[in-house]
């Protein structure tokens, strides 16, 4: 399969990461790369170009919000859509994430159809 899109999943929980990878495998022509925290995410971003990024907020070493900030200051990925995944459903957290430059916000527990729909929407993949 020749991948048309590339996606970076930054998540410290192996369970969530596996679940996200399963969900994203339902999106045709999408190649997924995994990173287990913000720093690992930055490393992967430096090594290649990604069309979309999914990141958890609460992670050790570097959290998701700091990662979004860094992504927005990176010339190669400053326009890359970012989906924030978090356990917090409060409107303030949502606002903060969007202000930092995130494009969408998904709360846990995640539902695969919701993740797929959001990724397709941001990548402008016609269903």
């Amino acid at each position, binding site marked *: 399969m020749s991948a048309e899109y590339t996606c970076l999943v930054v998540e410290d929980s192996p*369970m969530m990461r596996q*679940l996200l990878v399963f*969900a994203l495998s339902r999106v045709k022509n999408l190649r997924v790369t995994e990173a287990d925290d913000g720093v690992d995410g930055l490393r992967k971003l430096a090594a290649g170009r990604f069309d979309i990024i999914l990141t958890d907020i609460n992670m050790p070493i570097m959290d998701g919000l700091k990662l979004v900030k860094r992504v927005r200051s990176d010339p190669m990925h400053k326009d890359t859509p970012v989906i924030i995944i978090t*356990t917090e459903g409060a409107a303030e957290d949502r606002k903060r994430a969007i202000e930092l430059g995130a494009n969408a916000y998904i*709360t846990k*527990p995640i539902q695969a159809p919701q993740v*797929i729909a959001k990724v397709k929407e941001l990548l402008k993949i016609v269903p």
Partner: protein
Amino acid sequence: MADRKTGGGQQPDAKGEASGDIKTDASAKIERDSFVHTFFKKGAEFTDELLRENDRLRKRLFDLESENAALRTHLASDEAIRELLRKIEYLEREKEQLLSHVREAERNSSHLFTRYSEVEEELSNLAHLYVASYQLHSTLHLREVLRHLKELLTQLVGSRAHAFYLKDGSDLVPISSDGIELSRLPRLAIHAGSRKEEDRGSRDRTGDLIERVFMTGVAHIEEGELSTAPRDQPAACVPMRIDDAVVGVIVIYSLLDQKEQFLPVDYALFKMLGAHAATALMGALLFANSNGKFPGLEAIDAITRNVGDDLK
């Protein structure tokens, strides 16, 4: 002129006869002239009349031809209209058929879309279960098993506070918790229904519920809107089994705000946890007791021999 003087071309003789003849001749001539004149006049009139009649007839003929042409045109036009009406009727029928096909296609499409959504949801649920069981049995280290159990409840179910109770003698002992301090959780004595009414006040409804779930082996899961569920008792209480024996209870005290209600996948996860959490915990405990040593082939041989003896 000479004729005129003599009264015409014939000279009257002296006699009256001659004069009479002349007279007669003249009269006859006059009459003849008059007749001829009248005749010609009538002829001219008749000719005029004929010409007028001819004109009238020509005009009439022209009118009739025009009328005929108009009628022919009209007839052709009527035929064209009839043909058009027939065509409209045919097109209307065709339109109805096409609309019917479109409606049927829409119904099929809607049905397929619904089915597709159901299959997607089913796949998502299966993925949840697969990931949960894969992670749960991916390690024999107790710390890791507990971490996976905690993650499973937090990430997949949406738990904010939960605890795991295991049976120890006649008590249920909290062995791990998240979102609630372990030291705040009491040991629960299992009274097997013999507890006196006056003792009941010393324990809250949560304790009663945990005990009941342990005793009966029947899970308690709040159905419907979780926001309207009673605050003084857990949202879910799931017995943990090894074979048919209940060995502990998973207690979910509260859930994330955005978790509005338990979904079918949560029920499936609870069922899976009820059957696998205890075996994962027991496996990890046994592994810890063996100081992290994997049993050798001799252990398998011994067990097989014993099983073989039992079968004899």
